């Protein structure tokens, strides 16, 4: 086929034809060359300034001597120095002093909120109210105490974690390990429920009380009030880690329980752990 003139554009075709399809011989539009050159110049400039081309075992370093790792390290350091104006106070000042310092506490609340949401909320919930298997940190009798120091310690070493100084606690599996039989457990369950709920006394509850004194009181205390020395929960309050209905309590006693709280030593910096401890103290203070 001969080149033909296209009536719309006035251009000639190339003379190639496929199944009725043709192509115009239009020259490459000028802007294409223009932008190719502009972009190329930009790139050559960038290559001159920045690390760019490999040279065997090394590479062109660029006139700016930019180094990604060095610049990140420097920026992280500068940010830490800037923050140190208040984080150093958090690290060294007594908790009581900080708790009285309104300006410092404002920073604790601001920073504690995101630290808690990013590191703790997946287990303890956004508002630290806990959920099945994870204790509320704002209400009820605390497992290991609610002073800043106790909280700080818990956060640092964790509970049943792999930290060498981890806090440890375990609720034995009375049913599975054959220490109590099913009817005895039913009795204890009834008794435990009566500790926090107004339930009329029955024979079974009385029997449960005896069994409790013999088997449980060593850890949970005579009245079931728990023991924050060894991280044993209070059974008389309305805060439950695993649930306060008969089935859950039965499960706790039958199978035993051992919660795991990770250690944050090495994962969070000292000032971050202290901020979290202070944040939790503050939350509990203001909890409804």
């Amino acid at each position: 086929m001969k080149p033909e003139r296209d009536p719309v554009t006035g251009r000639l075709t190339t003379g190639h034809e496929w199944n009725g399809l043709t192509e115009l011989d239009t020259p490459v539009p000028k802007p294409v060359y223009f932008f190719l050159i502009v972009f190329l110049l930009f790139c050559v400039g960038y290559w001159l300034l920045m690390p760019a081309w490999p040279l065997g075992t090394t590479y062109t370093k660029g006139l700016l001597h930019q180094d990604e790792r060095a610049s990140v390290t420097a920026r992280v350091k500068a940010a830490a120095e800037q923050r140190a104006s208040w984080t150093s106070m958090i690290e060294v000042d007594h908790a009581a002093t900080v708790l009285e310092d309104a300006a410092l506490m404002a920073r604790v609340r601001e920073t504690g909120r995101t630290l808690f949401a990013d590191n703790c909320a997946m287990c303890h919930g956004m508002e630290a109210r806990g959920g099945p298997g994870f204790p509320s940190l704002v209400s009820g009798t605390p497992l290991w105490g609610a002073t800043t120091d106790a909280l700080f310690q818990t956060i640092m070493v964790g509970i049943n974690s792999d930290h060498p100084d981890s806090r440890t606690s375990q609720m034995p599996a009375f049913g599975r390990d054959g220490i109590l039989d099913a009817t005895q457990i039913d009795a204890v369950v009834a008794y435990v429920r009566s500790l926090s709920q107004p339930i009329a006394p029955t024979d079974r509850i009385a029997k449960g009380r005896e069994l409790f004194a013999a088997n449980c009181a060593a850890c949970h205390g005579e009245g079931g009030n728990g023991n924050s020395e060894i991280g044993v929960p209070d059974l008389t309050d309305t805060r439950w880690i695993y649930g306060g209905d008969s089935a859950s309590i039965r499960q706790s006693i039958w199978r035993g329980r051992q919660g795991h709280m990770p250690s944050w030593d090495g994962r969070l910096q000292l000032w971050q752990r202290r901020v979290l401890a202070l944040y939790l103290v503050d939350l509990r203070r203001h909890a409804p």
Partner: protein
Amino acid sequence: MIAQLTLGERRAGLIILVAIALVGLAMAIAGGNGPFGVHGALVLVGAIAGTFWLLGHYLDAPPRAERLREYYDDPSKVGVALAMIWAVAGMGFGVWVAALLAWPEFTLDQEWASFGRIRPIHTTGVIFGFGGNALIATSFYVMQRTCRTRLPDQLGAWFVLLGYNLFCVLATTGYAMGVTQSKEYAEPEWYVDLWLLVVWVTYFIVYLRTLAHRREPHIYVANWYYLAFVLVVAMLHIVNGLAVPVSFGTDKSYPLFSGVQDALTEWWYGHNAVAFFLTSGFLGMMYYFLPVRAGRPIYSYRLSIISFWGITFMYMWVGSHHLHYTALPQWVQTLGMTFSIILLVPSWGSAANALLTLNGAWHKVRDDATLRFMMVAAVFYGLTTFEGSFLAIRSVNSLSHYTDWTVGHVHAGALGWVAMISFGSVYAMVPWIWKRRAMYSPALVEVHFWLALAGTLIYVIAMWNSGIIQGLMWRTYNESGTLAYSFVDSLVAMRPYYIARTVGGLCFFAGAVLGCLNIYLTATRAPASSAGDSAVTADPRPPVGAMQPAE
């Protein structure tokens, strides 16, 4: 279908099927109850069914010699049907994945329906299932028309098409069972990869043989693009797929490279999958169907050449822009970024070439939804490549990376460009290959167009917003010098956009369902075409009378 195979081909087909059945049997035995064994059983059952079917027609009359005077479009017909089925399935999973991000409990408590498993089912379903089948179906059509010759044989095309779909089925069912290499867009394990390799090399050979038999002196641009797609995808697939299986009786394998080398190989693959699968192949489609449907010559042959070589050369360098600010040495990032920037020029060259081709046919764009699909696709192609070059700039990427902005970019490309050009081309091709006067319902095509456009815009705008908000929230510091927002805060902020995205996806999905229906009705109900049809709706030049037998 079997009746069209020559006797020799029937024999060869039988041998292939028996060989596949034996491999399936070996896999089933070696893999036992594990996923590998399940896949073996699947292959075995499929191959046995195929064998019986073939045997049932083995003695049918051999095909007539006149067939050689016509183009062989049956594989394209089946390919279109498969592409549409994968489109509906893949996009259906897409809507589901989108919904999961807004309502996480939507997994129905099933392992296989967890986010990590259905996300790759969605991506593989749409990219490889829908996109791949559309590419194969149209490439068979285009290569015959532009080479003015019939496919070199019947069996090759069927092997490619059905083999490829077996690959897609093994890949997606594998993810449901937890079989994955964990490399994005290259999830299938070693045995599925090997099978794809066999299919892909056959595809390449079919293409080369058709070109070798061509009766046109020049090779049309569309063929360069399709060929680059086939060739480069083979190369990428081989290098990124290098892996050592734990044993020949398990699905698990470990990649040959590790650490940052593996990451770079993966993204060299990943970006060139975008480049050669999602771009080159579909540019091939665009270069044929858009000018034919518009009835216009390509705007500039020279621009086609520059753009083709620009894209082909430059794309190879840019994979590292997916690894900015990572362990990857900075000089590699520099190269990825700078080449991505220059890449904009040939990309816009292609988009401009397509849009300028429409000069003199804009009235058709207004009236014809099929052509409008292709026009909008070219616009989105331009938009996406501009955005891509922008995102590749390191400082921009530090904001966009890991956010929904990337997802928005991807879907401007995937919905706006890839899917739109495919729907346009399929709507053009379906009446031609089924020899119908037009689509059964042009009105439905029109509805599909608006659903697709609305869906894309809702989706992309939602993700742009969500991505930028997310990126900004993650980098905002308060006066104390600590993060102002927690990650969960950003999730809460994204939720409305996730719901909007689900709605957008639903629109797009609904369009695809209508398309399926319309294509089915066209194939079965639409009036047959007769001489004197208008140039737009009829194949511009019916099979050439004086065609030489290809065998």
